[in-house]
């Protein structure tokens, strides 16, 4: 038996979910064949005339009317224009908008943050109780740093430390400041000179304070020269030109390129190589890692940089947090692994004629996908 269903052009309106109010989402269904344009009209309760809102994109069939006032009631009407007919659809009940207190589409993010937070706090507590039981693998670039400073000292050459070209707000820059403190202490110990040019003034002032403290900790506060920590420029290639000039004139024996870098990464690393310096790089800029790997002696790869900054202090609390993010990695691996098994299972079951698993799997995917919007 064949039912010929002619579905009629309809429209629905509801408060836009997960927003701060002031918006109603309109959907149109069963758009007639050959429609060229769908116009949307709105009637405010108490008024007598419909006003035009705009065009609903045909391929989407959805429009957010963001010109409404919260709490006011509206009636919507849509017209679909085909070359020969005009179809009209209207909602039956008044719609209104309101703000929400919780963005439901971000639930999974909240779950992850909560989980992450708890895990890190737990591990920090554990680490405090039993600092010996914490294993963190060695990072060769970090081990090489002291040696590099030492070699520069032997050659009577200064050390150059470039903290990248991001602002203090970038996690890589913050990690770089911690590494700078370590390098600074060694430099002070060996009575060498450290040159530290900057792209951002705030990073510069932070570095000045950090180095000053590092020199004090090493017992040589007066060896610190504030003029060696200076601002260069906030222009990407101007900065590269300036640092290259410094490399060629001052001929540092060890170069540290630690922080977030962009295209200038290879300009700096190759110039550094040409003057024969030991180079230890580290960056959270994944796009620049290949260039550092090719041109430098040691590289802290992405996350290693953050681990290094925690590792340096040897403080149990910081080490605990490394353990915490390792566990988060395991959770992700398990999640992806379960997804793989479940996905395969669901696919097989689905073929066998049991769509329930498939639907559960789709739901999970949807849940994750929504958060990524």
């Amino acid at each position, binding site marked *: 038996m064949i039912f010929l269903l002619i579905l009629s052009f309809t429209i629905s309106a509801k408060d836009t979910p*997960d*927003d*701060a*109010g002031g918006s109603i989402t309109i959907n149109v269904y069963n758009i007639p064949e050959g429609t060229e344009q769908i116009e949307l009209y709105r009637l405010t309760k108490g008024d007598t005339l419909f006003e035009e809102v705009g065009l609903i994109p045909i391929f989407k069939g959805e429009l957010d009317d963001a010109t409404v006032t919260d709490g006011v009631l509206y009636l919507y009407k849509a017209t679909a224009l085909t070359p020969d007919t005009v179809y009209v659809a209207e909602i039956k009940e008044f719609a209104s908008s309101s*703000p*929400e*207190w*919780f*963005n439901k589409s971000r639930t999974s*993010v*909240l779950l992850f*943050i909560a989980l*992450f*937070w708890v895990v*890190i*706090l737990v591990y*920090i507590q554990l680490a405090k109780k039993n600092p010996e039981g914490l294993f963190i693998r060695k990072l060769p670039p970090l081990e090489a740093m002291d040696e590099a400073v030492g070699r520069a000292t032997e050659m009577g050459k200064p050390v150059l430390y470039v903290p990248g070209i991001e602002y203090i707000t970038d*996690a890589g820059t*913050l*990690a770089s*400041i*911690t590494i700078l403190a370590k390098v600074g202490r060694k430099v002070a110990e060996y009575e060498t000179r450290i040159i530290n040019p900057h792209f*951002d*003034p*705030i990073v*510069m002032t*932070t570095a000045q*304070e950090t180095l000053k403290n590092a020199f004090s900790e090493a017992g040589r506060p007066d060896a610190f020269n504030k*003029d060696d920590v*200076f*601002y260069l420029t*906030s*222009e990407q*290639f*101007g900065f*590269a030109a300036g640092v290259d000039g410094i490399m060629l004139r001052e001929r540092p024996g060890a170069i540290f390129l630690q922080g977030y870098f962009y*295209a200038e990464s*290879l*300009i700096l690393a190759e110039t550094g*190589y040409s003057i024969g310096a030991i180079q230890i790089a580290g960056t*959270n800029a*994944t796009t620049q*890692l290949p260039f550092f*790997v*090719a*041109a430098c002696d040691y590289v802290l*790869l*992405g*996350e290693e*940089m*953050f681990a290094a*900054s925690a590792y340096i202090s040897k403080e149990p*609390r*910081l080490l605990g*947090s*490394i353990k*915490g*993010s390792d566990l*988060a*990695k395991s959770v992700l691996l398990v999640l992806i692994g379960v997804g793989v098994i479940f996905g395969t299972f669901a696919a097989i079951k689905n073929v066998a004629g049991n769509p329930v698993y498939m639907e559960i799997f789709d739901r999970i995917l949807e849940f994750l996908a929504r958060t990524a919007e």
Partner: protein
Amino acid sequence: MKKRVPLLITFITGFIIIVSFFVPHRPFGQLETETLIWYAIIFAFTLVIGVDSLVRLHIKHIRKRKKGWWYSIVFFAGFFYCLTIGIISLIQTPNIFQPGTVFFYGYETILIPLQATMFALLAFFVASASYRAFRARNIEATLLLIAAVIVMIGRVPAGYKLWPKLPVIANWIFDVLQIGAMRGILIGVALGAVAMSLRLILGIERTYLS
């Protein structure tokens, strides 16, 4: 007072901003855009520190007649040149970035070639770096070398002439073989950054406040 209060500020600010990510309702929903406006203003003040630092350094060079001090005069020449054309343009028109203004012209004729030339140095450097680094020292280095060479040659017509399959293999390396590792690195960096941010908000990581 000097360290406790900033740490408290860090915690409260960070926490409120995280909350605002989940709460669209007023006043939280607007908070992110609002803070960005605030930060732009704070940022403006920090630029002053930078300019001050550099200008002071160069004045010192000139005063003390340090070696190469006259390069500092060149620095000031460039500085005042840009400042002057900026001021002239500001008087002339409300939009100084509009093509046709003195500022735009001065920028385009001098700063752009300088930037472009510095950027273009990379053509030489990718050559010298790949010559030196891409040696088959061990398995990892060999794979790095092979992947680089195939992708490199697969992207120019010469690769197709050499072997029509080369561009296909190059694309496959780029679209499939490297994706997993890149994703892994990205996830790692993001996790590290999140952990770092949490440490900051909790006041465990405080080197920057030293």
